[in-house]
């Protein structure tokens, strides 16, 4: 008894929506980056589910690339957070309003 592909789509949609909500409502920059990780994982679930559905390994290879980009994003993002914390001594994003019009 196999699981229909739509269940995986619903699961990844729920996780992606949770990530979007986290990016929008959290004030802590680290929590925002964690929510971005949630969204990346939602797309990974989609990729692997379709890879199994079509019996095509391309989806799994793309998850591999998504992992690479996620690692790069985390390294640069956390470096930016450390630099921001060094200059402003806070990681609350409402304090970072230099570019507001």
């Amino acid at each position, binding site marked *: 008894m196999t699981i229909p592909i*739509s269940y995986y789509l619903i699961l990844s949609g729920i996780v992606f929506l949770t990530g979007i909500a986290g990016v929008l409502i959290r004030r802590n920059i680290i929590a925002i980056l964690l929510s971005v990780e949630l969204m990346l994982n939602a797309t990974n679930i989609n990729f692997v589910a379709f890879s199994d559905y079509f019996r095509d390994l391309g989806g799994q*290879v793309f998850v591999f690339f998504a992992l690479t980009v996620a690692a790069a994003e985390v390294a640069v993002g*956390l470096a930016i957070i450390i630099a921001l914390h060094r200059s*402003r001594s806070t990681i609350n994003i409402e304090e970072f309003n230099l570019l507001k019009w």
Partner: protein
Amino acid sequence: MSQLIFVYFAGMIVATSILVVALKNPVYSALSLLVMFFHVAGLFVTLHAEFLAAVQIIVYAGAILVLYLFVVMILNVKQDDRYHSQWRIAGFVCVPLLIEAIVLLSSGRGARAIDTQAMFVPSQEAIASDNTLAIGQTLFSTYLFPFEVASLVLLVAMIGAIVLAKPEIGEQDNPGPLVQTKAAE
């Protein structure tokens, strides 16, 4: 049986991802994200992606999350993390998205149509038994150029992280900008 396993993994993934957003302490958020990564890896195993399950645990849980925890503990954040003041605007963005998802799922024009109409017939050939070997062959033949680009992305990210995170040259001698502004006040 497989449905039971899927329901368990899916339920845990949804619950822990909501916890990631809802918990106030970033350390707890990161730890519930760790639980979520392990369950996503379990889901990958049920989808015949054993190599990716191992990579998910090693790279995400082993490397990325440890980096997060290091930064959380270096910064030593005080726990006054309320929600963002623009959460009403965020609600205006999220509620239509949620309604769209519900309408798509309930009207039968979205996900269910894929199953019933069978737009794409899944091929019946068995997936290779050796998942790692198959991924390696695909990666180094069809996707060789993206693989090289990925290595370049990692190099650039490493250099960028070092440049961004290192102290300014001569910062040890002068007081930092924070100290200067405090002195000016």
